[in-house]
């Protein structure tokens, strides 16, 4: 299924061929679409396999840490989720830029920005929750006003706001442009969140509990490999989710325009029928 189809230019001379061509693949792009479908399917399988392997390794094969005990197993989930969050927002930023740049403007970048941001919000929420679950037995509290936690929580709400901006009614170009600018502004907070651990320490000079999740503690052997695998697996999952979210966006757009055209035609035929 082509991601760049523009419904309004579909050939309309004969209703029967239009119906026959169907929605899933335009006649000429059938071969390409089939390959793409296979690739996405393979991506999904790889992501699933990677995550399953991470779980098995993380929960059973790897040894408990000498300091953290079994809690270290959360290290195979939480940092990967945070990593994907940053990637997702980075992609949102870049594709919003691509949309605003006149030479590369096109609905696919707007769709990508929206899809990546939505997936990013999911991963941000999960990062916060898994971090909180890690923090409870470690620091004794579900939440602390640590700069990293606070800025990440802000990031969550911020991109929820971005998703709200995407929903403001208007024509497609207006919505896309407005959303793109909102994405650029929202992205300003991403480096703030990322560097917050560094900056707050240098400005405050207060000893902070060294967060082993962020610090470079030396881990080795099976633990290091599992950590690496988790990053790869969740990145693949991110890609798969974004592809499907983009597809959904295309379907929604086509549904809107098809529904509109259908309604227009029905009104027309009513009018003609009434007049004759």
């Amino acid at each position, binding site marked *: 299924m082509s991601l760049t189809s523009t419904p309004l230019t579909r050939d309309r001379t004969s209703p029967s061929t239009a119906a026959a061509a169907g929605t899933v693949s335009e006649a000429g792009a059938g071969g390409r679409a089939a390959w793409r479908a296979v690739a996405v399917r393979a991506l999904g399988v790889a992501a699933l396999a990677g995550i399953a392997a991470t779980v098995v390794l993380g929960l059973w094969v790897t040894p408990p840490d000498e300091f953290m005990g079994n809690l270290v197993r959360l290290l195979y989930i939480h940092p990967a989720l945070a990593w994907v969050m940053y990637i997702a927002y980075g992609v949102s930023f870049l594709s919003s830029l691509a949309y605003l740049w006149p030479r590369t403007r096109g609905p696919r970048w707007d769709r990508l920005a929206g899809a990546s941001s939505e997936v990013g919000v999911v991963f941000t929420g999960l990062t916060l929750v898994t971090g909180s679950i890690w923090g409870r037995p470690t620091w004794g509290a579900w939440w602390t006003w640590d700069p990293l936690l606070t800025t990440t929580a802000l990031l969550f709400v*911020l991109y929820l*706001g971005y998703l*709200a*901006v995407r929903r403001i009614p*208007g024509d497609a170009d207006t919505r896309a*442009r*407005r959303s793109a600018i909102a994405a*650029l*502004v929202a992205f300003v907070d991403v480096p703030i969140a990322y560097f917050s651990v560094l900056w707050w320490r240098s*400005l405050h000079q207060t000893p902070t509990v060294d967060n082993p999740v962020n610090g470079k503690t030396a881990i080795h052997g099976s633990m290091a490999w599992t950590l690496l695998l988790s990053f790869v697996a969740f990145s693949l999952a991110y890609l798969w989710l974004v592809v499907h979210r983009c597809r959904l966006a295309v379907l929604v757009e086509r549904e809107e325009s098809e529904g509109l055209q259908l309604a227009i035609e029905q009104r027309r035929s009513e009018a003609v029928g009434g007049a004759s």
Partner: protein
Amino acid sequence: MWRDALLVAGKDLRIELRAKVALGQVAPFAVVVLLLFGLALGPAVGSGSVLFAAAAGLFWVTVLLATVLAVQRSFALESVDGASDGLRMSGLDPAGIFVGKAAAIASQLLLLEVLLAAVASVLFDRHLAGWAILAASAVAATVGLVALGTIYGVVSIGSRQRETLLPLLFFPMAAPVLLAATKAWDAALADAPGHALGWLDVLLVFAVAYVAIGTVAFGPLLEDA
């Protein structure tokens, strides 16, 4: 651009002089918020109390709330009688419109902050020391907050959920500015100007960044509103 900015700022300020919304509604609102904070966290005052320690933060949260109101008011002016169409077709430079609107809001807010600082120092029993740093950081923080608010204000201008959308968009982005302003004031009030200067730098960066983004983005956003 500057002439257009002055034109728009003058218009907004003249409307305010006549309607007295900032004076009559936003300022009392802000004072009430400070009182509510006192109620919620008091009644103890003096150097050991919560109110004493939190004074700078409470002040800036109040300013943030007042900023939202001021921005909403500023864009409500443009939402009636096709005023926003008039603005778009007037041939004014959109960057100038942005600077003008932001300047008008900022000047009203700065006056409000002077009033609020006096009230807060009385209510929370804090002596206002380090005037230069207090003033400089307040100006930088206000410019940053207002620029940011104006950017989001124009986004929500066409939306029917304007009242709830603007705070949702604005507050998370404003949080770093809020934090820096609070820390700067904390340091200034505690007579540690060295620390405050670091935070002042942060505030200046935000102010410059948001004004720059605003001047560039305001045009397209106004078109789409």
